[in-house]
Protein backbone atom coordinates (compact mmCIF):
# COMPACT_ATOMS: atom_id res chain seq x y z
CA UNK A 1 0.00 0.00 0.00
CA UNK A 2 2.62 2.48 -1.00
CA UNK A 3 0.74 4.93 -3.21
CA UNK A 4 -2.86 5.66 -2.27
CA UNK A 5 -4.95 8.28 -4.02
CA UNK A 6 -8.19 9.70 -2.73
CA UNK A 7 -11.15 9.71 -5.09
CA UNK A 8 -14.56 11.16 -4.39
CA UNK A 9 -17.38 8.99 -5.68
CA UNK A 10 -20.48 10.64 -7.21
CA UNK A 11 -22.22 9.63 -3.96
CA UNK A 12 -19.88 11.95 -2.09
CA UNK A 13 -17.93 9.35 -0.14
CA UNK A 14 -14.17 9.48 -0.59
CA UNK A 15 -12.48 6.15 -1.24
CA UNK A 16 -8.79 5.33 -1.39
CA UNK A 17 -7.36 3.65 -4.47
CA UNK A 18 -3.96 2.17 -4.98
CA UNK A 19 -2.08 3.60 -7.95
CA UNK A 20 -0.86 1.06 -10.52
CA UNK A 21 2.93 0.92 -10.62
CA UNK A 22 4.80 1.85 -13.79
CA UNK A 23 6.14 -1.72 -13.91
CA UNK A 24 2.65 -3.22 -13.86
CA UNK A 25 1.58 -0.91 -16.65
CA UNK A 26 4.64 -1.73 -18.74
CA UNK A 27 4.00 -5.45 -18.35
CA UNK A 28 0.34 -4.94 -19.28
CA UNK A 29 1.32 -3.01 -22.41
CA UNK A 30 3.80 -5.76 -23.37
CA UNK A 31 1.14 -8.44 -23.01
CA UNK A 32 -1.31 -6.42 -25.10
CA UNK A 33 1.26 -5.76 -27.81
CA UNK A 34 2.18 -9.44 -27.95
CA UNK A 35 -1.49 -10.36 -28.18
CA UNK A 36 -2.07 -7.86 -31.00
CA UNK A 37 0.81 -9.37 -32.92
CA UNK A 38 -0.48 -12.88 -32.40
CA UNK A 39 -3.93 -11.86 -33.67
CA UNK A 40 -2.43 -10.23 -36.76
CA UNK A 41 -0.26 -13.27 -37.39
CA UNK A 42 -3.16 -15.69 -37.09
CA UNK A 43 -5.18 -13.47 -39.39
CA UNK A 44 -2.48 -13.35 -42.04
CA UNK A 45 -2.09 -17.12 -41.91
CA UNK A 46 -5.85 -17.65 -42.16
CA UNK A 47 -6.17 -15.26 -45.10
CA UNK A 48 -3.11 -16.80 -46.77
CA UNK A 49 -4.61 -20.27 -46.44
CA UNK A 50 -8.01 -19.28 -47.76
CA UNK A 51 -6.98 -16.67 -50.33
CA UNK A 52 -5.04 -18.90 -52.70
CA UNK A 53 -7.82 -19.18 -55.28
CA UNK A 54 -7.46 -15.94 -57.17
CA UNK A 55 -8.57 -13.75 -54.31
CA UNK A 56 -5.24 -12.27 -53.45
CA UNK A 57 -6.45 -8.69 -53.83
CA UNK A 58 -9.39 -9.18 -51.53
CA UNK A 59 -7.13 -10.93 -49.04
CA UNK A 60 -4.70 -8.03 -49.08
CA UNK A 61 -7.58 -5.59 -48.55
CA UNK A 62 -8.84 -7.59 -45.58
CA UNK A 63 -5.39 -7.66 -44.02
CA UNK A 64 -4.85 -3.92 -44.47
CA UNK A 65 -8.17 -3.09 -42.85
CA UNK A 66 -7.68 -5.56 -40.00
CA UNK A 67 -4.21 -4.13 -39.30
CA UNK A 68 -5.75 -0.73 -38.97
CA UNK A 69 -8.69 -1.89 -36.89
CA UNK A 70 -6.49 -3.79 -34.46
CA UNK A 71 -3.95 -1.01 -34.17
CA UNK A 72 -6.53 1.71 -33.57
CA UNK A 73 -9.31 -0.11 -31.77
CA UNK A 74 -7.78 -2.93 -29.73
CA UNK A 75 -7.26 -0.76 -26.67
CA UNK A 76 -10.45 1.36 -26.80
CA UNK A 77 -12.76 -1.56 -27.49
CA UNK A 78 -11.38 -3.66 -24.66
CA UNK A 79 -11.28 -0.74 -22.23
CA UNK A 80 -14.91 0.04 -23.00
CA UNK A 81 -16.25 -3.49 -22.95
CA UNK A 82 -14.22 -4.76 -20.03
CA UNK A 83 -14.79 -1.71 -17.83
CA UNK A 84 -11.36 -0.16 -18.10
CA UNK A 85 -9.36 -3.30 -18.67
CA UNK A 86 -7.54 -4.95 -21.56
CA UNK A 87 -6.25 -8.54 -21.47
CA UNK A 88 -2.86 -7.22 -20.34
CA UNK A 89 -4.41 -5.04 -17.66
CA UNK A 90 -6.56 -7.91 -16.49
CA UNK A 91 -3.49 -10.11 -16.18
CA UNK A 92 -1.72 -7.49 -14.06
CA UNK A 93 -4.94 -6.66 -12.14
CA UNK A 94 -4.94 -2.97 -13.02
CA UNK A 95 -7.64 -0.86 -14.63
CA UNK A 96 -8.47 2.55 -16.01
CA UNK A 97 -10.83 4.80 -14.07
CA UNK A 98 -12.00 8.36 -14.47
CA UNK A 99 -9.99 10.79 -12.35
CA UNK A 100 -13.16 12.67 -11.49
CA UNK A 101 -14.67 9.59 -9.81
CA UNK A 102 -17.56 9.56 -12.26
CA UNK A 103 -18.23 7.07 -15.04
CA UNK A 104 -15.52 6.27 -17.57
CA UNK A 105 -16.89 7.69 -20.82
CA UNK A 106 -16.27 6.47 -24.37
CA UNK A 107 -14.72 9.85 -25.24
CA UNK A 108 -12.22 9.55 -22.41
CA UNK A 109 -11.22 6.05 -23.49
CA UNK A 110 -10.84 7.10 -27.13
CA UNK A 111 -8.86 10.21 -26.18
CA UNK A 112 -6.46 8.36 -23.90
CA UNK A 113 -5.77 5.76 -26.58
CA UNK A 114 -5.38 8.27 -29.41
CA UNK A 115 -2.09 9.35 -27.93
CA UNK A 116 -0.85 5.78 -27.83
CA UNK A 117 0.13 6.30 -31.45
CA UNK A 118 2.62 8.90 -30.25
CA UNK A 119 3.65 7.24 -27.03
CA UNK A 120 3.86 3.59 -27.99
CA UNK A 121 3.67 2.84 -31.71
CA UNK A 122 5.87 5.63 -33.05
CA UNK A 123 8.59 5.09 -30.43
CA UNK A 124 8.51 1.36 -31.15
CA UNK A 125 8.80 2.03 -34.86
CA UNK A 126 11.72 4.40 -34.31
CA UNK A 127 13.36 1.88 -32.02
CA UNK A 128 12.88 -1.12 -34.33
CA UNK A 129 13.25 0.48 -37.76
CA UNK A 130 14.72 3.97 -37.57
CA UNK A 131 15.35 4.11 -41.33
CA UNK A 132 11.71 3.46 -42.20
CA UNK A 133 10.49 6.34 -40.08
CA UNK A 134 13.17 8.99 -40.29
CA UNK A 135 14.71 7.90 -43.60
CA UNK A 136 14.97 10.65 -46.17
CA UNK A 137 15.04 13.35 -43.54
CA UNK A 138 18.20 15.06 -42.30
CA UNK A 139 19.78 13.58 -39.19
CA UNK A 140 18.71 16.43 -36.93
CA UNK A 141 15.06 15.61 -37.63
CA UNK A 142 15.68 12.10 -36.35
CA UNK A 143 17.35 13.51 -33.26
CA UNK A 144 14.47 15.89 -32.52
CA UNK A 145 11.97 13.08 -33.09
CA UNK A 146 13.94 10.85 -30.73
CA UNK A 147 13.96 13.50 -28.01
CA UNK A 148 10.27 14.15 -28.53
CA UNK A 149 9.50 10.47 -28.08
CA UNK A 150 11.70 10.34 -25.01
CA UNK A 151 9.64 13.10 -23.39
CA UNK A 152 6.51 10.97 -23.73
CA UNK A 153 8.28 7.87 -22.50
CA UNK A 154 9.50 9.46 -19.25
CA UNK A 155 6.33 11.44 -18.55
CA UNK A 156 4.73 8.68 -16.41
CA UNK A 157 7.94 8.46 -14.37
CA UNK A 158 8.14 12.12 -13.47
CA UNK A 159 4.63 12.89 -12.26
CA UNK A 160 3.10 11.92 -8.97
CA UNK A 161 0.19 9.93 -10.38
CA UNK A 162 2.17 8.13 -13.11
CA UNK A 163 -0.03 9.79 -15.74
CA UNK A 164 0.98 9.32 -19.34
CA UNK A 165 0.02 11.92 -21.94
CA UNK A 166 -3.07 9.88 -22.83
CA UNK A 167 -4.22 9.98 -19.21
CA UNK A 168 -3.78 13.75 -19.14
CA UNK A 169 -5.96 14.20 -22.20
CA UNK A 170 -8.49 11.52 -21.27
CA UNK A 171 -8.80 12.56 -17.63
CA UNK A 172 -8.09 9.02 -16.51
CA UNK A 173 -6.02 7.24 -13.89
CA UNK A 174 -4.73 3.66 -13.82
CA UNK A 175 -5.25 1.92 -10.48
CA UNK A 176 -5.13 -1.45 -8.77
CA UNK A 177 -8.30 -2.54 -7.02
CA UNK A 178 -7.53 -6.00 -5.69
CA UNK A 179 -10.06 -7.96 -3.63
CA UNK A 180 -9.43 -7.96 0.12
CA UNK A 181 -10.45 -10.47 2.76
CA UNK A 182 -12.58 -9.38 5.68
CA UNK A 183 -10.58 -10.52 8.70
CA UNK A 184 -12.12 -11.61 11.99
CA UNK A 185 -13.22 -8.91 14.35
CA UNK A 186 -10.64 -9.05 17.14
CA UNK A 187 -13.00 -7.11 19.38
CA UNK A 188 -15.72 -9.76 19.30
CA UNK A 189 -14.11 -12.47 21.38
CA UNK A 190 -16.59 -12.90 24.17
CA UNK A 191 -16.58 -11.53 27.72
CA UNK A 192 -13.37 -10.16 29.09
CA UNK A 193 -11.46 -12.09 31.75
CA UNK A 194 -9.16 -9.28 32.80
CA UNK A 195 -10.18 -5.92 34.20
CA UNK A 196 -8.69 -2.52 33.38
CA UNK A 197 -9.32 0.79 35.07
CA UNK A 198 -10.50 3.75 33.01
CA UNK A 199 -7.28 5.68 33.64
CA UNK A 200 -5.31 2.70 32.30
CA UNK A 201 -7.31 2.91 29.09
CA UNK A 202 -6.86 6.65 28.68
CA UNK A 203 -3.20 6.45 27.78
CA UNK A 204 -3.05 5.08 24.26
CA UNK A 205 -4.69 6.40 21.07
CA UNK A 206 -5.98 5.03 17.78
CA UNK A 207 -2.53 4.70 16.25
CA UNK A 208 -1.27 2.45 19.07
CA UNK A 209 -4.51 0.47 18.96
CA UNK A 210 -4.09 -0.26 15.26
CA UNK A 211 -0.43 -1.12 15.73
CA UNK A 212 -1.49 -3.60 18.39
CA UNK A 213 -4.12 -4.95 15.98
CA UNK A 214 -1.40 -5.57 13.38
CA UNK A 215 0.67 -7.45 16.01
CA UNK A 216 -2.31 -9.57 17.04
CA UNK A 217 -3.14 -10.42 13.43
CA UNK A 218 0.25 -12.08 13.11
CA UNK A 219 -1.25 -14.82 15.27
CA UNK A 220 -0.36 -16.77 18.39
CA UNK A 221 2.39 -18.80 16.76
CA UNK A 222 5.63 -19.94 18.35
CA UNK A 223 7.87 -17.61 16.33
CA UNK A 224 5.62 -14.67 17.14
CA UNK A 225 5.76 -15.36 20.87
CA UNK A 226 8.86 -13.22 21.74
CA UNK A 227 7.29 -10.22 19.98
CA UNK A 228 3.99 -10.71 21.80
CA UNK A 229 5.76 -11.01 25.13
CA UNK A 230 7.81 -7.86 24.52
CA UNK A 231 4.75 -5.83 23.52
CA UNK A 232 2.74 -7.15 26.47
CA UNK A 233 5.51 -6.28 28.92
CA UNK A 234 5.89 -2.79 27.50
CA UNK A 235 2.14 -2.09 27.74
CA UNK A 236 1.89 -3.51 31.28
CA UNK A 237 4.73 -1.29 32.42
CA UNK A 238 3.31 1.77 30.68
CA UNK A 239 -0.19 1.49 32.12
CA UNK A 240 0.95 0.14 35.49
CA UNK A 241 -0.93 -3.13 35.31
CA UNK A 242 0.08 -6.19 37.30
CA UNK A 243 -1.40 -9.64 37.15
CA UNK A 244 -2.77 -10.89 40.42
CA UNK A 245 -1.94 -14.34 41.66
CA UNK A 246 -2.31 -16.29 38.42
CA UNK A 247 0.01 -15.93 35.44
CA UNK A 248 -1.53 -14.43 32.30
CA UNK A 249 -0.10 -15.37 28.89
CA UNK A 250 0.90 -12.43 26.63
CA UNK A 251 -1.63 -13.56 23.99
CA UNK A 252 -4.58 -13.47 26.40
CA UNK A 253 -3.42 -10.20 27.94
CA UNK A 254 -2.99 -8.44 24.59
CA UNK A 255 -6.29 -9.75 23.21
CA UNK A 256 -8.23 -8.61 26.22
CA UNK A 257 -6.44 -5.31 26.44
CA UNK A 258 -7.10 -4.68 22.74
CA UNK A 259 -10.85 -5.22 23.19
CA UNK A 260 -11.02 -3.02 26.29
CA UNK A 261 -8.91 -0.29 24.74
CA UNK A 262 -10.97 -0.29 21.53
CA UNK A 263 -14.24 -0.17 23.45
CA UNK A 264 -12.96 2.82 25.42
CA UNK A 265 -11.67 4.71 22.38
CA UNK A 266 -14.78 4.00 20.32
CA UNK A 267 -17.01 5.20 23.15
CA UNK A 268 -15.08 8.46 23.27
CA UNK A 269 -15.29 8.59 19.46
CA UNK A 270 -19.08 8.56 19.75
CA UNK A 271 -18.81 11.58 21.98
CA UNK A 272 -16.69 13.32 19.39
CA UNK A 273 -13.30 12.90 21.04
CA UNK A 274 -10.85 11.24 18.72
CA UNK A 275 -7.48 10.48 20.20
CA UNK A 276 -4.88 9.75 17.52
CA UNK A 277 -1.67 9.16 19.51
CA UNK A 278 -0.77 8.32 23.07
CA UNK A 279 -0.28 11.04 25.64
CA UNK A 280 3.15 12.68 25.57
CA UNK A 281 6.06 10.92 27.28
CA UNK A 282 6.31 13.68 29.89
CA UNK A 283 2.98 12.99 31.56
CA UNK A 284 3.42 9.46 32.76
CA UNK A 285 0.45 7.40 33.81
CA UNK A 286 -0.50 7.75 37.47
Amino acid at each position, binding site marked *: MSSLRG*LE*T*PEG*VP*IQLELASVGDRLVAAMIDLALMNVVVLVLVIMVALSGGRG*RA*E*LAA*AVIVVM*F*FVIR*CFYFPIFE*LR*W*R*GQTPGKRATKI*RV*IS*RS*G*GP*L*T*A*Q*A*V*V*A*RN*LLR*ELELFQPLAILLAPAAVAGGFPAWVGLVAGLWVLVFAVLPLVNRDHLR*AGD*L*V*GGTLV*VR*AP*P*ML*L*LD*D*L*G*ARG*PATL*QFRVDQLDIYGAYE*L*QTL*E*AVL*RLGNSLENLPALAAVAEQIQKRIGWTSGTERVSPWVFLGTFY*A*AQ*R*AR*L*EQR*LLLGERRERKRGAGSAAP
Partner: protein
Amino acid sequence: MSGELHMPSVRFRQEREASWRTLEALVDRVQSSGLRSLSADELARLPVLYRAALSSLSVARAIALDAALLAYLNALAARAHVVLYGGREPFAPAFLRFWARTFPRTVRSLRWHFGVAILLTALGATVAWRELARDPARWSDFIPPAYAQGRGPEATDADLRSVLERKETPRSALIHFSSFLFTHNSTIGLASLGLGFAAGVPTAFLLLTNGLILGAFGWLYGARGLGWEFWAWTLPHGVTEIWALLLCAAAGLRVGQALVFPGRLSRLASLRRAGETAGIVALGSVAMFLIAGLIEGIFRQSVGDPGIRWAVAGSTFTLWSLYFALAGRTP
Protein backbone atom coordinates in the same frame (compact mmCIF):
# COMPACT_ATOMS: atom_id res chain seq x y z
CA MET B 1 -15.50 -1.86 33.61
CA SER B 2 -17.25 -5.15 33.78
CA GLY B 3 -17.46 -8.26 31.59
CA GLU B 4 -19.63 -7.11 28.69
CA LEU B 5 -17.92 -4.48 26.55
CA HIS B 6 -19.92 -1.83 24.73
CA MET B 7 -18.34 -1.68 21.33
CA PRO B 8 -20.52 -0.04 18.68
CA SER B 9 -18.27 -1.22 15.87
CA VAL B 10 -18.74 -4.88 16.75
CA ARG B 11 -22.51 -4.69 16.59
CA PHE B 12 -22.32 -2.50 13.52
CA ARG B 13 -20.31 -5.13 11.73
CA GLN B 14 -22.53 -8.00 12.86
CA GLU B 15 -25.59 -6.24 11.52
CA ARG B 16 -24.20 -5.33 8.12
CA GLU B 17 -21.69 -8.00 7.30
CA ALA B 18 -24.16 -10.12 5.33
CA SER B 19 -24.90 -7.31 2.87
CA TRP B 20 -21.18 -6.67 2.34
CA ARG B 21 -20.61 -10.35 1.63
CA THR B 22 -23.46 -10.34 -0.91
CA LEU B 23 -21.99 -7.32 -2.68
CA GLU B 24 -18.54 -8.91 -2.65
CA ALA B 25 -19.90 -12.07 -4.28
CA LEU B 26 -21.71 -10.05 -6.97
CA VAL B 27 -18.61 -7.97 -7.72
CA ASP B 28 -16.51 -11.14 -7.93
CA ARG B 29 -18.91 -12.59 -10.45
CA VAL B 30 -19.07 -9.44 -12.58
CA GLN B 31 -15.28 -9.22 -12.67
CA SER B 32 -14.81 -12.84 -13.68
CA SER B 33 -17.72 -13.40 -16.04
CA GLY B 34 -19.27 -10.02 -16.84
CA LEU B 35 -22.47 -8.18 -16.02
CA ARG B 36 -24.48 -10.62 -18.11
CA SER B 37 -23.91 -13.36 -15.55
CA LEU B 38 -26.16 -11.52 -13.08
CA SER B 39 -29.89 -12.09 -12.98
CA ALA B 40 -32.25 -9.13 -13.34
CA ASP B 41 -32.87 -9.19 -9.60
CA GLU B 42 -29.15 -9.19 -8.76
CA LEU B 43 -28.55 -6.43 -11.28
CA ALA B 44 -31.15 -4.29 -9.55
CA ARG B 45 -29.60 -4.97 -6.14
CA LEU B 46 -26.05 -4.15 -7.17
CA PRO B 47 -26.31 -0.33 -6.94
CA VAL B 48 -28.35 -0.57 -3.74
CA LEU B 49 -25.75 -2.79 -2.11
CA TYR B 50 -22.99 -0.50 -3.41
CA ARG B 51 -24.57 2.55 -1.80
CA ALA B 52 -25.08 0.59 1.41
CA ALA B 53 -21.39 -0.33 1.40
CA LEU B 54 -20.45 3.32 0.86
CA SER B 55 -22.62 4.37 3.75
CA SER B 56 -21.09 1.61 5.88
CA LEU B 57 -17.68 2.97 4.97
CA SER B 58 -18.62 6.49 6.09
CA VAL B 59 -20.13 5.22 9.33
CA ALA B 60 -17.16 2.95 9.99
CA ARG B 61 -14.77 5.86 9.53
CA ALA B 62 -16.71 7.75 12.17
CA ILE B 63 -17.21 5.03 14.78
CA ALA B 64 -14.79 2.15 14.23
CA LEU B 65 -11.10 1.81 14.98
CA ASP B 66 -10.72 -1.66 13.50
CA ALA B 67 -8.10 -1.15 10.77
CA ALA B 68 -8.94 -4.43 9.03
CA LEU B 69 -12.61 -3.51 8.78
CA LEU B 70 -11.83 -0.06 7.35
CA ALA B 71 -9.43 -1.51 4.79
CA TYR B 72 -11.93 -4.15 3.74
CA LEU B 73 -14.79 -1.69 3.31
CA ASN B 74 -12.61 0.70 1.35
CA ALA B 75 -11.44 -2.07 -0.98
CA LEU B 76 -15.00 -3.34 -1.41
CA ALA B 77 -16.32 0.15 -2.21
CA ALA B 78 -13.46 0.73 -4.66
CA ARG B 79 -14.09 -2.55 -6.48
CA ALA B 80 -17.84 -1.97 -6.64
CA HIS B 81 -17.19 1.59 -7.84
CA VAL B 82 -15.12 0.44 -10.82
CA VAL B 83 -17.76 -2.16 -11.66
CA LEU B 84 -20.58 0.41 -11.59
CA TYR B 85 -18.69 3.34 -13.10
CA GLY B 86 -16.40 1.40 -15.41
CA GLY B 87 -18.34 2.80 -18.34
CA ARG B 88 -20.41 0.58 -20.57
CA GLU B 89 -23.50 1.81 -22.22
CA PRO B 90 -25.75 0.02 -24.68
CA PHE B 91 -24.33 0.43 -28.16
CA ALA B 92 -27.29 1.39 -30.37
CA PRO B 93 -28.62 4.44 -28.45
CA ALA B 94 -25.08 5.68 -27.82
CA PHE B 95 -24.32 5.34 -31.54
CA LEU B 96 -27.43 7.27 -32.54
CA ARG B 97 -26.85 9.98 -29.99
CA PHE B 98 -23.29 10.36 -31.19
CA TRP B 99 -24.28 11.01 -34.81
CA ALA B 100 -27.43 12.98 -34.09
CA ARG B 101 -26.04 15.30 -31.42
CA THR B 102 -22.58 14.83 -29.98
CA PHE B 103 -20.51 14.87 -33.17
CA PRO B 104 -22.12 17.81 -35.02
CA ARG B 105 -22.26 19.88 -31.83
CA THR B 106 -18.61 19.26 -31.10
CA VAL B 107 -17.70 20.18 -34.67
CA ARG B 108 -19.64 23.43 -34.33
CA SER B 109 -17.79 24.22 -31.12
CA LEU B 110 -14.55 23.92 -33.10
CA ARG B 111 -15.53 26.38 -35.85
CA TRP B 112 -12.72 28.85 -35.11
CA HIS B 113 -10.09 26.14 -35.03
CA PHE B 114 -11.60 24.77 -38.22
CA GLY B 115 -11.25 28.21 -39.80
CA VAL B 116 -7.59 28.39 -38.77
CA ALA B 117 -7.02 24.94 -40.27
CA ILE B 118 -8.56 26.09 -43.57
CA LEU B 119 -6.45 29.26 -43.54
CA LEU B 120 -3.23 27.30 -42.98
CA THR B 121 -4.08 24.90 -45.80
CA ALA B 122 -4.96 27.77 -48.11
CA LEU B 123 -1.70 29.49 -47.19
CA GLY B 124 0.27 26.35 -48.13
CA ALA B 125 -1.66 25.99 -51.39
CA THR B 126 -1.11 29.62 -52.37
CA VAL B 127 2.60 29.47 -51.65
CA ALA B 128 3.04 26.29 -53.73
CA TRP B 129 0.95 27.63 -56.59
CA ARG B 130 2.78 30.96 -56.82
CA GLU B 131 6.24 29.47 -56.44
CA LEU B 132 5.60 26.88 -59.13
CA ALA B 133 4.09 29.45 -61.48
CA ARG B 134 7.37 31.36 -61.19
CA ASP B 135 9.72 28.40 -61.33
CA PRO B 136 8.37 24.93 -62.29
CA ALA B 137 11.75 23.38 -61.48
CA ARG B 138 10.88 23.63 -57.81
CA TRP B 139 8.30 20.85 -58.17
CA SER B 140 10.41 18.29 -56.32
CA ASP B 141 10.73 20.71 -53.37
CA PHE B 142 7.00 20.36 -52.78
CA ILE B 143 6.17 16.84 -53.88
CA PRO B 144 8.29 13.84 -52.86
CA PRO B 145 8.99 11.57 -55.86
CA ALA B 146 7.27 8.56 -54.24
CA TYR B 147 4.08 10.59 -53.90
CA ALA B 148 4.16 12.06 -57.38
CA GLN B 149 4.22 8.64 -59.10
CA GLY B 150 5.51 10.18 -62.32
CA ARG B 151 3.14 13.15 -62.21
CA GLY B 152 5.14 16.35 -62.58
CA PRO B 153 6.05 19.18 -64.92
CA GLU B 154 7.99 16.75 -67.13
CA ALA B 155 4.97 14.42 -67.61
CA THR B 156 3.06 14.68 -70.89
CA ASP B 157 -0.53 15.87 -71.04
CA ALA B 158 -1.57 12.38 -72.13
CA ASP B 159 0.06 10.82 -69.04
CA LEU B 160 -1.70 13.22 -66.71
CA ARG B 161 -4.99 12.76 -68.48
CA SER B 162 -4.73 8.97 -68.32
CA VAL B 163 -4.64 9.02 -64.50
CA LEU B 164 -7.79 11.12 -64.40
CA GLU B 165 -9.73 9.02 -66.87
CA ARG B 166 -8.71 5.57 -65.78
CA LYS B 167 -11.78 3.56 -64.90
CA GLU B 168 -11.31 -0.01 -66.04
CA THR B 169 -9.80 -1.88 -63.10
CA PRO B 170 -10.76 -5.23 -61.66
CA ARG B 171 -13.25 -5.03 -58.82
CA SER B 172 -11.01 -6.63 -56.24
CA ALA B 173 -8.26 -4.13 -56.91
CA LEU B 174 -10.69 -1.39 -56.06
CA ILE B 175 -11.36 -2.90 -52.67
CA HIS B 176 -7.67 -3.08 -51.93
CA PHE B 177 -7.16 0.46 -53.12
CA SER B 178 -9.93 1.95 -51.04
CA SER B 179 -9.03 -0.03 -47.91
CA PHE B 180 -5.46 1.18 -48.25
CA LEU B 181 -6.57 4.76 -48.75
CA PHE B 182 -8.90 4.58 -45.80
CA THR B 183 -6.32 3.29 -43.36
CA HIS B 184 -3.66 5.64 -44.71
CA ASN B 185 -5.84 8.72 -44.41
CA SER B 186 -7.20 7.77 -41.00
CA THR B 187 -3.71 7.27 -39.66
CA ILE B 188 -2.65 10.70 -40.93
CA GLY B 189 -5.79 12.30 -39.50
CA LEU B 190 -5.37 10.70 -36.08
CA ALA B 191 -1.68 11.58 -36.04
CA SER B 192 -2.43 15.23 -36.77
CA LEU B 193 -4.93 15.13 -33.92
CA GLY B 194 -2.57 13.46 -31.48
CA LEU B 195 0.29 15.74 -32.49
CA GLY B 196 -1.78 18.65 -31.22
CA PHE B 197 -0.40 17.66 -27.83
CA ALA B 198 2.91 19.23 -28.87
CA ALA B 199 1.35 22.69 -28.53
CA GLY B 200 -0.27 22.28 -31.95
CA VAL B 201 2.96 23.02 -33.83
CA PRO B 202 3.23 19.70 -35.73
CA THR B 203 -0.47 19.92 -36.59
CA ALA B 204 0.00 23.33 -38.16
CA PHE B 205 3.04 21.98 -39.99
CA LEU B 206 0.99 19.05 -41.39
CA LEU B 207 -1.73 21.46 -42.54
CA LEU B 208 0.79 23.63 -44.37
CA THR B 209 2.35 20.56 -46.01
CA ASN B 210 -1.06 19.34 -47.12
CA GLY B 211 -1.79 22.77 -48.56
CA LEU B 212 1.52 22.71 -50.45
CA ILE B 213 0.68 19.36 -52.07
CA LEU B 214 -2.84 20.47 -52.93
CA GLY B 215 -1.58 23.75 -54.43
CA ALA B 216 1.20 22.05 -56.39
CA PHE B 217 -1.16 19.56 -58.04
CA GLY B 218 -3.74 22.25 -58.63
CA TRP B 219 -1.08 24.32 -60.41
CA LEU B 220 0.18 21.33 -62.43
CA TYR B 221 -3.21 20.38 -63.83
CA GLY B 222 -4.41 23.96 -64.09
CA ALA B 223 -1.40 24.97 -66.17
CA ARG B 224 -2.17 22.17 -68.63
CA GLY B 225 -5.81 23.15 -68.98
CA LEU B 226 -6.89 20.03 -67.08
CA GLY B 227 -8.16 21.90 -64.01
CA TRP B 228 -11.82 21.00 -64.47
CA GLU B 229 -11.04 17.30 -64.88
CA PHE B 230 -8.51 17.28 -62.04
CA TRP B 231 -10.90 18.72 -59.48
CA ALA B 232 -13.64 16.43 -60.79
CA TRP B 233 -11.24 13.58 -60.09
CA THR B 234 -10.23 14.83 -56.61
CA LEU B 235 -13.29 16.39 -55.09
CA PRO B 236 -15.96 13.62 -55.00
CA HIS B 237 -14.04 11.90 -52.21
CA GLY B 238 -11.81 14.89 -51.51
CA VAL B 239 -14.62 16.93 -50.00
CA THR B 240 -15.23 14.30 -47.33
CA GLU B 241 -11.59 13.40 -46.89
CA ILE B 242 -10.19 16.91 -46.66
CA TRP B 243 -13.06 17.89 -44.40
CA ALA B 244 -12.26 15.04 -42.02
CA LEU B 245 -8.59 15.91 -42.13
CA LEU B 246 -9.34 19.55 -41.33
CA LEU B 247 -11.58 18.44 -38.45
CA CYS B 248 -8.81 16.28 -37.01
CA ALA B 249 -6.39 19.16 -37.34
CA ALA B 250 -8.88 21.55 -35.75
CA ALA B 251 -9.21 19.22 -32.76
CA GLY B 252 -5.41 18.92 -32.66
CA LEU B 253 -5.13 22.73 -32.55
CA ARG B 254 -7.74 22.75 -29.79
CA VAL B 255 -5.63 20.33 -27.72
CA GLY B 256 -2.55 22.44 -28.33
CA GLN B 257 -4.42 25.56 -27.31
CA ALA B 258 -5.67 23.87 -24.14
CA LEU B 259 -2.09 23.02 -23.22
CA VAL B 260 -0.58 26.44 -23.90
CA PHE B 261 -3.50 28.69 -22.90
CA PRO B 262 -5.52 26.91 -20.23
CA GLY B 263 -7.35 30.12 -19.30
CA ARG B 264 -9.11 29.99 -15.95
CA LEU B 265 -8.88 26.21 -15.70
CA SER B 266 -5.89 24.33 -14.40
CA ARG B 267 -3.75 22.93 -17.18
CA LEU B 268 -4.86 19.40 -16.33
CA ALA B 269 -8.56 20.23 -16.35
CA SER B 270 -8.20 22.20 -19.56
CA LEU B 271 -6.41 19.30 -21.29
CA ARG B 272 -9.08 16.89 -20.12
CA ARG B 273 -11.81 19.00 -21.66
CA ALA B 274 -9.95 19.31 -24.93
CA GLY B 275 -9.32 15.56 -24.83
CA GLU B 276 -13.03 14.88 -24.72
CA THR B 277 -13.47 16.97 -27.87
CA ALA B 278 -10.55 15.18 -29.48
CA GLY B 279 -12.03 11.75 -28.75
CA ILE B 280 -15.35 12.69 -30.31
CA VAL B 281 -13.76 14.19 -33.42
CA ALA B 282 -11.49 11.16 -33.80
CA LEU B 283 -14.43 8.76 -33.81
CA GLY B 284 -16.44 10.84 -36.25
CA SER B 285 -13.60 11.54 -38.63
CA VAL B 286 -12.59 7.89 -38.90
CA ALA B 287 -16.12 7.22 -40.16
CA MET B 288 -15.76 10.12 -42.60
CA PHE B 289 -12.47 8.69 -43.87
CA LEU B 290 -14.22 5.38 -44.41
CA ILE B 291 -16.89 7.07 -46.51
CA ALA B 292 -14.24 8.99 -48.46
CA GLY B 293 -12.27 5.78 -49.04
CA LEU B 294 -15.37 4.06 -50.41
CA ILE B 295 -16.13 6.95 -52.75
CA GLU B 296 -12.53 7.11 -53.91
CA GLY B 297 -11.99 3.42 -54.46
CA ILE B 298 -15.32 2.39 -55.89
CA PHE B 299 -17.08 5.41 -57.34
CA ARG B 300 -14.19 7.36 -58.78
CA GLN B 301 -12.61 4.52 -60.67
CA SER B 302 -15.86 3.31 -62.15
CA VAL B 303 -17.39 6.65 -63.21
CA GLY B 304 -15.30 8.71 -65.62
CA ASP B 305 -17.56 11.59 -66.65
CA PRO B 306 -16.37 14.88 -65.07
CA GLY B 307 -19.97 16.21 -64.97
CA ILE B 308 -21.19 13.38 -62.77
CA ARG B 309 -18.06 13.61 -60.64
CA TRP B 310 -18.68 17.32 -60.08
CA ALA B 311 -22.29 16.61 -59.18
CA VAL B 312 -21.22 14.07 -56.57
CA ALA B 313 -18.64 16.46 -55.16
CA GLY B 314 -21.26 19.21 -54.94
CA SER B 315 -23.82 17.03 -53.23
CA THR B 316 -21.39 15.62 -50.65
CA PHE B 317 -20.35 19.17 -49.85
CA THR B 318 -23.97 20.26 -49.44
CA LEU B 319 -24.83 17.23 -47.32
CA TRP B 320 -21.91 17.65 -44.94
CA SER B 321 -22.54 21.41 -44.69
CA LEU B 322 -26.19 20.89 -43.83
CA TYR B 323 -25.34 18.09 -41.39
CA PHE B 324 -22.74 20.07 -39.46
CA ALA B 325 -24.75 23.27 -39.57
CA LEU B 326 -28.11 21.87 -38.50
CA ALA B 327 -27.86 18.45 -36.81
CA GLY B 328 -28.36 18.36 -33.06
CA ARG B 329 -29.46 21.96 -32.62
CA THR B 330 -31.92 22.43 -29.80
CA PRO B 331 -35.16 23.91 -31.14
